[in-house]
């Protein structure tokens, strides 16, 4: 099944396109030092107009410059590393934690399930921004701290949804049947329940990329996370958004980048799920 699954995935052109796009972004992130036309932190005198405003895309700076006269293209390339780690790793961790907890709580039910869900409520009410400020004052800011805070805070949403879905699934007859046939908990969880939850997991794994990249900007603003002048896509948007009416390229290009990465993972994930799903025959 695995071999035929991969073959089907490879044949799905859209999914392949998604993988290619993801690949391009990853390569761009890794090869930024060679690909970027300029130093991402260099503030150019010609980067700003005489009155001090950023310049739109032009032959010298292909995607325009930012509020300090730095080349936007270079900053996007270098920022890919930060944003991909946040969007994929931090979000991925949040989704994994949330799925596990939601799954176990939904399946176990009773007091255990209730307790886990009440813990989830508590974590949802957790003042994350205050935590960010507290951490910023104690630790040297870094990408990994903000990734950790995001993972700590974002898992609750998918946990709730997975929990609800799991409880609905677990109540179905075929689960009872499987148990009657002697299937162990692990088997039920991973073979019978999890595949049906993949669509939901996929939603959070892909849309979540966009949401977490933007969230990282807010947390970095509060002091944890990447330190200026290190670029990140969310950070560029955050510091330029009030200039949207006069310098739209500063929001547009990073926004497109975020959207493309999230979409690409979405297409990839869709194709992957279709390929692995035994009930799926063609379209």
């Amino acid at each position, binding site marked *: 099944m695995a071999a035929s699954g991969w073959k089907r995935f490879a044949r799905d052109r859209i999914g392949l396109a998604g993988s290619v796009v993801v690949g391009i972004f990853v390569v761009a992130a890794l090869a930024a030092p060679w690909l970027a036309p300029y130093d991402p932190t260099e503030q150019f005198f010609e980067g700003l107009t005489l009155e001090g405003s950023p310049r739109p895309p032009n032959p010298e700076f292909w995607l325009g410059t930012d509020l300090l006269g730095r080349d936007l293209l270079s900053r996007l390339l270098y920022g890919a590393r930060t944003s991909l780690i946040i969007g994929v790793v931090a979000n991925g961790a949040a989704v994994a934690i949330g799925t596990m907890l939601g799954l176990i709580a939904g399946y176990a039910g009773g007091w255990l399930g209730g307790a886990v869900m009440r813990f989830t409520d508590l974590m949802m009410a957790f003042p994350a921004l205050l935590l960010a400020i507290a951490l910023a004052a104690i630790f040297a800011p870094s990408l990994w701290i903000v990734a950790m805070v995001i993972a700590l805070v974002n898992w609750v949403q998918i946990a709730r949804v997975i929990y609800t879905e799991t409880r609905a699934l677990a109540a179905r007859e075929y689960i009872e049947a499987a148990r009657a046939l002697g299937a162990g908990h692990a088997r039920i969880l991973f073979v019978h329940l999890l595949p049906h939850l993949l669509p939901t997991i996929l939603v959070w794994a892909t849309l979540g990329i966009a949401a977490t990249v933007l969230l990282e900007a807010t947390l970095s*603003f509060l002091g944890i996370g990447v330190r200026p002048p290190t670029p990140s896509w969310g950070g560029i948007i955050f510091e330029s958004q009030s200039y*949207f009416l006069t310098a739209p390229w500063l929001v547009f290009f990073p926004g497109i980048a975020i959207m493309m990465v999230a979409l690409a993972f979405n297409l990839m994930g869709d194709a992957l799920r279709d390929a692995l799903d035994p009930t799926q025959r063609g379209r």
Partner: protein
Amino acid sequence: MRKLLVVAAALIVALPLTVSAQTKQGGEMIVTYKDDVSTLDPAIGYDWQNWSIIKSIFSGLMDYEPGSTVLVPDLAESFQISEDGMTYTFTLREGVKFHNGRELTSADIKYSIERTVNPATQSPGAGFFASIVGFDQVVAGETTDLLGISTPDERTVVFQLSAPNATFLHVMAINFSFAVPREVVEEYGADFATHPVGTGGFRLAEWTLGQRLVLERNPDYFEPGLPYLDRIVFEVGQEPTVALLRLKNGEVDILGDGIPPAQFEEVMNDPANEGLIVEGGQLHTGYVTMNVNVPPFDNVLVRRAVNMAIDKDRIVRIINNRAVPANQPLPPLMPGYDTGYAGYAYDPEGAKALLAEAGLADGFDTVLYAMNTDPNPRIAQAIQQDLAAVGIRAELQSLAQATVIAAGGEPEGAPMLWSGGMAWIADFPDPSNFYGPILGCGGAVQGGWNWAWYCNEEIDASAAAADAMVGADLADARLDLWRSIFIAIMDDAPWAPVFNEQRFTMHSPNIGGDDSLFVDPVHIPVNYDHVYAVSAQ
């Protein structure tokens, strides 16, 4: 018989800026702000937003001529200063009424200042009255009676100082001394902040928390014909970019937070805004402090090198030329500013040479703190790049305001700190206010605002001497002394002054008034009492 030196005769202020022979009263003005107004208690209000609103609701013994920094009596009809400068006698006007109808007496003045000094009020301004006899006892909680203030009769207030204080008249014009009615304060307690009653030209008509605050003209105001506006409406919670759009739409009259940086260039270049934007100076300086406790900033050569490394013109350009480069601690509008001083020119090579002389030819690593709201991170990054060009590798810590202030107040907390967004705008237009809290030994304490931790005993002594020079005949000599004090400080270079912010006030065509009212150095954003509605004329 002690000779009394009469300093000021009875003056009823004749407004020098007559717009027309008779400016009619009437009309409404709408001002927008992003933040909610915090408190209208004159003893407590200390942010630039409520400062001028409080000035319109309350009055003090002294005030400033509209649009200028010249002191004139307000609640006082006249005053006299003793020859030794330790006794001030104020005669109150007759017939001044609080908004609740009761007439003002000298007891109210004494009560109001005692209230500010009383630790139970938690006033941030208590320290301004430290020169009054009996201050220490009240602050220590031993008594509520400030013995240095006496009221021989209902219209006379006498202040006894423990030492001559050249800034005392400014202190009598500051919000913390404004008159409040005891009975209303006792009725409302801490809620007086939202139920202010004073003697000013406007009284509070309505306050919906988080949405709007409305002031209406006080018909019994002791200045006849003033204020001109019938009502002022403050709408809060407004994003500055949206406020600008609303102003263009005719919905708003004044942008309380100023022209948003994002639209600044567009607005200035728009011919339709001709005459609607007034530019003026502020009593502000933005500077980088260098903590003299933290090596290598304990070496004056390094501090001078930093001064020479910063390209101030470029930074001013980054903020759309909304400031002028600064070369000394005092802003140009401040008396005592040295117009002839050249300061440290931008000279990266010279900076590198100085660093080499200090034994740091390879540069060094350090940390630069800055506040996180725009444009401060940008300015800090520009400074960071300039420092890197001479070999100083500064890591940037862009944090919330409270955190940065706390770091600055630690003895070795912040090696370098960009003051933008936090400090320093003068409390009153006198050079001494630019020294004490931020450059004086008294401010170099835990939690203080002297983030350079600079303490020069000689200069401290000079400053004290300057502030003891009371009297109009000593005024020039005093300013000369202050001038030399700040030049001496620049020689020591605990700061690298970067720029003085200019103010650009934009108003709708509906509001009229002399230009100076829109960039009044004491009233921000505009002088509420003296602007008028064009539609009512």
